[in-house]
């Protein structure tokens, strides 16, 4: 895919990356190394510094401190256009020109790249062929996002940056984008995506870094991160009145308890052994249970475990 001789150079690398806007620290010392051909996800709540990190990687912002390399090269050293030519970008909130059609838009972006695919090919790759003559303002949210993807792909990039690719889309449109991204992953492209949906990160990324307040608080494959919870199951307990957390921790088999509002999240080793004891305790305490559910641990649980907050709490 790449003509770069130094193929052992990582696709993306940064160390001690920092960026502030006035007094607000957006990125506070991030280190990342993303090998070629892998798919990497930056997972975190809104305002965690994900977009700022992406914008520094694609050369739209300069870091205040730290090092940053894209395919072994740095921004501002005279090869910016050559670097841009190898990156495909889908930015959050970009609205493409309303009055142009799908095909005109893709063809316009195609003209900026010396190599790449045919406009029609890129339109077909995101399954918009039957909409190719439609104006951008007549597209649905999911179709607009697929067009943004086509525009990101048309230069046949080595690295594809996707900033919140499915935010605001309905489940069906999200699944369609995921399927498209699955296909792109299999072609050996490096994918760097940001998201605050843990299911998206679990589905699309080989490796994930969880960021909060501009720092990486955990990194690994989704499986590793979930395994680090040291829990087989998670019990979510929604109650009307709060109760003594120690009573829950004292139930045999409960590893830890976290509370958000009226919801307790219990990490448990063996569900079958823990549940009877838990129910007995709840009965004893005369707890008014709104709901009780159990699930396999997810990245969301990892985030809650690390921060005590939910991913969507911001």
């Amino acid at each position, binding site marked *: 895919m790449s003509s770069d001789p130094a193929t052992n150079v990582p696709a993306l690398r940064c160390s001690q990356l920092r960026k502030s806007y006035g007094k607000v620290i957006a990125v506070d010392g991030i280190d990342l190394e993303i090998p070629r051909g892998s798919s990497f996800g930056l997972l975190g709540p809104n305002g965690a510094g994900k977009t700022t990190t992406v914008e520094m990687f694609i050369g739209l912002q300069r870091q205040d401190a730290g090092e940053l390399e894209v395919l072994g090269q740095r921004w501002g050293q005279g090869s910016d256009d050559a670097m841009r030519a190898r990156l495909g970008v889908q930015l959050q909130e970009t609205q493409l020109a309303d009055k142009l059609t799908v095909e005109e838009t893709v063809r316009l972006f195609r003209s*900026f790249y010396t190599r790449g695919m*045919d406009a029609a090919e890129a339109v077909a790759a995101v399954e918009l062929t039957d909409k190719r003559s439609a104006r951008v303002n007549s597209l649905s949210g999911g179709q607009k996002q697929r067009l943004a993807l086509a525009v990101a792909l048309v230069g046949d990039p080595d690295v594809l940056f996707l900033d919140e690719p499915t935010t605001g889309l309905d489940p069906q449109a999200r699944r369609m984008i995921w399927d498209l991204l699955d296909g792109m992953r299999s072609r050996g492209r490096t994918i760097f995506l940001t998201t605050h949906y843990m299911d998206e990160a679990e589905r699309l990324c080989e490796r994930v870094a969880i960021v909060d307040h501009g720092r990486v608080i955990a990194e690994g494959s989704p499986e590793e991160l979930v395994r680090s919870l040291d829990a087989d199951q998670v019990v979510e307990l929604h109650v009307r009145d709060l109760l003594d957390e120690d009573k829950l921790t004292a139930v045999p088999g409960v590893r830890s308890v976290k509370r958000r509002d009226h919801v307790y999240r219990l990490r448990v080793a063996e569900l079958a052994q823990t549940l009877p004891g838990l129910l007995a305790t709840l009965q004893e305490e005369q707890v008014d249970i709104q709901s009780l559910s159990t699930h396999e641990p997810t990245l969301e649980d990892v985030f809650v475990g690390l921060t005590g907050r939910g991913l969507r709490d911001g």
Partner: protein
Amino acid sequence: MAEPKRKHPLLELTKARMLEFVREPEALFWVFAFPVLLALALGVAFRERPEQRPHIAVLEGDDGVGLVDPLSSSHAVDVSVMPEPEARRALRTGKVDAIVRLQKPGGVAKEGVTFIYDASRPEGRAGKTTAEDALQRALGRPDVAAVEEETVTQPGARYIDFLIPGLIGLNLMGSGMWGLGFTVVQARNRKLLKRLAATPMKRWHYLLSFMLSRLFFLVLEVGALVAFGWLVFGVRVTGSWLGLALVSVLGGITFAGLGLLVAARPRSVEVVSGWMNFVMLPMWLMSGSFFSYERFPAAMHPFIRALPLTALNDALRAIMNDGLPLWAVWQPVAVMAAWAVVSFVAALKLFRWQ
């Protein structure tokens, strides 16, 4: 490996600009239909009327005593007989230009007449002079010198001749500034500029594409007004067509540069609209599109002539109306070129991509 075909980015960008423009019906109206309608309305309102005779009122009671007949027989004035209050009202509203009254009620004209008119109105003075002249002759005053008249209508001296170049200038300013400013700021507001900045697109290609699409539409804009003026009002281009074309192109470039400068930083359409009006309003009023800037105090003229629209209007009129060659308008051309260069350089320096 066969590379898929791609067009030059400048070509694609220019094409995109033009498609976006023609798919905006409102923009088409303001650029093409509005100036023509304005020219039509103003051309009709200020059309050349057939020579009008002064309208003189004779008071009721003074008629039939040697006042109406001498005045009417001269065919130099129109005479109406009316009661005094009505005559005074007609004078005030401009329906009659002067009132003539016998000094002695019930007397005759030879015993003396009084003219009542507004000396600050040219029509009043003309009416009084013409009516007096007719009366004196009818009563026997001899003409001393033999007088011959030779009346002419100077081509290019009508209001519509003055107006059409002014409207061309105004339109080049409006479409250049709005066309660029609005589109650029909207693209910035929609984060499209940021997205483009993340591609290897050459940034000057983007800015140049606005110029190129402007130049294309400029031919149509100027053409529409010149053709309209010629077909409907017989406004002629007395100078060279090449001169007109070059001055128009320079005007288009100047205002595109100014539009780019105004749009270089604002993030919202509201803000850029405010700046656009702030920049354009003084030129609307002072640059002599609708009336000559000679009406402003002479001390202001150097400032007014330094405005780009004044320079464009002056150059267009010199070529269209006065038939002057291009070299004779080097001063306004230099003023425009200076504006174009300065605003372009400043816009490129200040331009905000995100």
